[in-house]
């Protein structure tokens, strides 16, 4: 290469493909900055529309006529008549469900200006796409219930509430999910708290109050989606990890409605191996097959089981001969619901499902298809899995998704190595840089930060963990209930693990690992 080029001067010789490449790989604004800029854009648009014209115009003026949304309401209405055989024939156009939209008038008024730029970029003829038509399903029929559960995300835009579900590890553990979801933007917050259940878990599964204490292993953490990324956030800390393998993996409600008959036909075409485990068939076959379920558009970690029960519906309900609607009008959590009872279809097919699962009871919200309550039982009638709703609200009644200040969070921590420092005694301290197992002993810091999901603060002594839990503390610790005990407080009988400051001198509190 002859001569020298300034790096920024070379940049001026890039083209638009280079610009796309750069922008795809390197986000230039924080979420807060984007919000600020977009607010300014909205203000500018509003000012211009109200006659306060201070925005620049691109050269050239040409009259264009807008394509009002009403045109598509007509199409939708016509289609709804054709589709009405399955459900009530009531159509809904997604944005028509929520008319309070700041820009909605843009589509309904005639545009009087456009720019030459638009003409300049005209390359291909394009037919206007028809709007997605959302049908209602008849919840007194099995097909209707199945269809609505597959497509629950079409029947609300906003949801908030609290649910509790069983934990797969132990019967005396459960997870509470307090959620806020905005399907129109993909934003959501799912606050997850793991509890040790002190009363009978059968009672909790039958809507009695939970008596328990937060488990210190998983504790409480937030799964927050800003509409672009799903982030795991520890409480009271500045740590946020992108929860997905790559960035920009938030899902959005964009796919068309799923035809329940198509799903049934597909499930019937699958030859499920006799040794298939409980979860594999639905997820694997739908991810790799010709028929796609609609994804987790609520971008939640636990609440999707309630809000988007498509996978559960496919797994349990695709064979209508194995279940019935046993109550067509059952009030639950303040909602009008249907009750479904049946046997898992793989039992009927002579296959053995996970954990001996046999029978189930579902309570499904008629208006949305959301699964508000579930119980599954083994062949002896013992409860296996359960979920109950403590509070549920939709649309206008729903609490909005709280804004999270991502500025205070280290949102890119996913690509940084944990920082290991040395204290005044020459001991290393920092976050785990590997699983807490004997093979990693030498590379683990002497004082390991007590932050799994729950940001408890303070440090474990590495040797304490190996002494108490053997060579595989990482695995063994999960099997215990854990409570935090501050100085002077009574504690259950168990293994005490002290949590120190970074100097390893002062005990901040004690974690008691115990088994009921």
């Amino acid at each position, binding site marked *: 290469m002859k001569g020298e*080029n300034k790096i*920024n001067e070379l940049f001026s010789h890039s083209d638009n493909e280079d610009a796309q490449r750069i922008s795809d790989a390197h*986000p*230039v604004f924080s979420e807060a900055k984007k919000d600020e800029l977009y607010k300014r854009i909205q203000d500018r648009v509003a000012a211009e529309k109200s006659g306060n014209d201070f925005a620049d*115009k691109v050269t050239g003026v040409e009259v264009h006529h807008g394509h009002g949304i009403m045109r598509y309401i007509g199409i939708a209405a016509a289609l709804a008549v054709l589709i009405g055989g399955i459900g009530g024939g009531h159509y809904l156009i997604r944005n028509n469900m929520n008319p309070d939209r700041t*820009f909605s008038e843009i589509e309904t008024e005639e545009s009087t200006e456009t720019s030459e730029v638009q003409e300049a970029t005209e390359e291909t003829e394009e037919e206007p796409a028809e709007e997605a038509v959302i049908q209602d399903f008849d919840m007194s029929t099995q097909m209707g219930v199945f269809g609505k559960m597959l497509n629950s995300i079409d029947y609300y835009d906003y949801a908030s509430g609290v649910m509790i579900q069983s934990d797969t590890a132990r019967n005396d553990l459960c997870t509470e999910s307090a959620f806020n979801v905005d399907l129109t933007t993909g934003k959501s917050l799912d606050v997850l708290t793991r509890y040790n259940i002190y009363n009978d878990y059968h009672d909790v599964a039958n809507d009695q109050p939970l008596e328990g204490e937060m488990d210190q292993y998983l504790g409480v953490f937030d799964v927050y989606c800003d509409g*672009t990324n799903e982030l795991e956030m520890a409480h009271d800390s500045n740590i946020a990890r992108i929860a997905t393998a790559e960035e920009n993996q938030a899902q959005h409600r964009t796919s068309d409605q799923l035809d329940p008959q198509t799903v049934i036909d597909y499930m019937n075409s699958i030859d499920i191996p006799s040794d298939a485990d409980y979860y594999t068939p639905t997820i694997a076959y739908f991810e790799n097959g010709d028929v796609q379920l609609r994804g987790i558009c609520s971008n939640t970690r636990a609440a999707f089981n309630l809000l988007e029960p498509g996978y559960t519906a496919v797994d349990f309900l695709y064979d209508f001969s194995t279940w019935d609607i046993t109550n067509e009008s059952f009030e639950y959590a303040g909602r009008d619901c249907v009750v479904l009872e049946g046997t898992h279809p793989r039992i009927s097919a002579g296959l053995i499902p996970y954990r001996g699962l046999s029978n189930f009871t579902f309570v499904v919200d008629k208006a949305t298809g959301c699964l508000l309550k579930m119980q599954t039982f083994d062949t002896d009638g013992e409860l296996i899995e359960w979920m109950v709703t403590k509070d549920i609200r939709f649309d206008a009644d729903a609490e909005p998704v709280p804004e999270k200040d991502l500025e205070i969070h280290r*949102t890119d921590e996913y690509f940084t190595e944990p920082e290991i420092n040395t204290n005044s005694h020459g001991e290393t301290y920092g976050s785990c840089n590997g699983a807490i197992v004997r093979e990693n002993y030498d590379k683990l810091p002497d004082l390991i930060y007590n932050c799994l999901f729950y940001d408890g603060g303070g440090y474990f002594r590495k040797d304490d963990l190996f002494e108490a839990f053997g060579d595989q503390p990482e695995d063994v610790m999960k099997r215990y209930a854990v409570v935090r005990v501050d100085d002077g407080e009574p504690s259950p009988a168990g293994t005490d693990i002290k949590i120190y400051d970074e100097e390893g001198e002062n005990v901040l509190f004690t974690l008691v690992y115990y088994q009921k």
Partner: protein
Amino acid sequence: MTENELKNLIRSNPDDGFRQLFEQYHGYAFTIIHRTLGGTGCAKDAEDCIVDTFADVILHYDTYAKGSLRSYIGAVARNKAINLKRSLTAAEFYTVGDEETNDIPDNSDSIEESAEKSQTFRLLLDKVEGLGKPDSTIIIHKFFFDMSSIEIAKTVGMTPAAVRMRLSRSLKKLKKSLEELGVTL
């Protein structure tokens, strides 16, 4: 989201659609604006230009028009940046026709020189990308977008001191590549 999906979303739900459009293309527009401004103005000027660009798009874009949405946004961003550069420098600029969305030609270079510099830029970009994140992001923000360590720190979720440290290490790693390409900072 594909362009057609985005257009459909704008038609069915304009505020969600335009927000998504901003999410999807703000970085692209910002890159074009910065490239066009070529060091003229400050960070706030570039941000003002982003606001102008997307307000214009929201007000005037017809989703039923033929053509590429990305090209449309690129052209608006570039024209806005040209106007801004004019107003900032009060100098006479070559006005690019709207039929193309390439950058402003540098009249001081021959076509061959310009093509060679474009090629060098891509090789440089390959080398920078080879550093991996977050170092590549820091380099690009620093040298292409003239962002300060404080601004970069906010974007990549690090402290300004850590940004400066990583920048220094990255430049050491890049030194040989830059020399081979004849590039100076």
